[in-house]
């Protein structure tokens, strides 16, 4: 299951860069770490964040 999140916000050059950690030799929990992260990324955005974004312009 390759569930790596390609991310939109820049950082697109990560793949194949020197120093990119190898995918081999992973312990059993390594995939779980990505699942934990991605499960939050996939959550719908709470209203409080939408409100905050809208209010940002007023902060100036």
């Amino acid at each position, binding site marked *: *299951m390759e569930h*790596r*999140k390609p*991310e*939109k*916000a*820049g*950082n697109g050059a*990560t793949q194949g*860069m*020197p*120093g*990119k*950690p190898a995918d081999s030799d992973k*312990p*059993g*929990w*390594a*995939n*779980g*770490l*990505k*699942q*934990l*992260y*991605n*499960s*939050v*990324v*996939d*959550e719908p*955005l*709470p209203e*409080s*964040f939408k409100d*905050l*974004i809208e209010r*940002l*312009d007023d*902060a100036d």
Partner: protein
Amino acid sequence: MSGDVRTAAEKADFKRELTEVIPHLRAFARGLCGRPDMADDLVQETMLKAWAAQDRFQPGTSMRAWTFVILRNAYLTDMRRNRFRGEYDEGVAERILNAPAGQEEPIHLADLQRALQTLPPERREALLLVGAGGFSYEEAAEICGCAVGTIKSRVGRARSALTSMLDEGKLPGRASTDGDAQQEILMELEKVAAGEGQTEPIK
């Protein structure tokens, strides 16, 4: 707040990019401090700081990396004030455990989340950046303001600690903050307090 004022279009771009990274900020914060409510507070604090400092963002560079720096600095500051110790996210762990399994999952994610929270914060963040966020060692080193070798070492130590806890079944008690783990956290924090490892591009 110097003379370099952004145009309305630039501000709109910044806002859009900032909005796009919120899910990643929430995921990083959740991994760092465990509890969803505190993590979201941290993200909101980060967004306000990022907005206030937007003149220092270089358009075209990674918004995710830039905001992660702000978030981890805010987190480490809060850690020093004793807020996030020994917390972990029961909500996420439960939801995942109840979700249909895509494949055989030998590790309970609740255990993983708990084990993660026992790591010293700097190892936890290094592991999250590289192992969950998909950053290279070089990128993680920039975010944490330390040498690449330091990141590699932190990730390596975090990995072996988790492997020992999870694959070998040496799980600490829930929300364990006493004993060696606590001691280690305090030692790491001493170093952070002494200025090692904490970057401060944003106040």
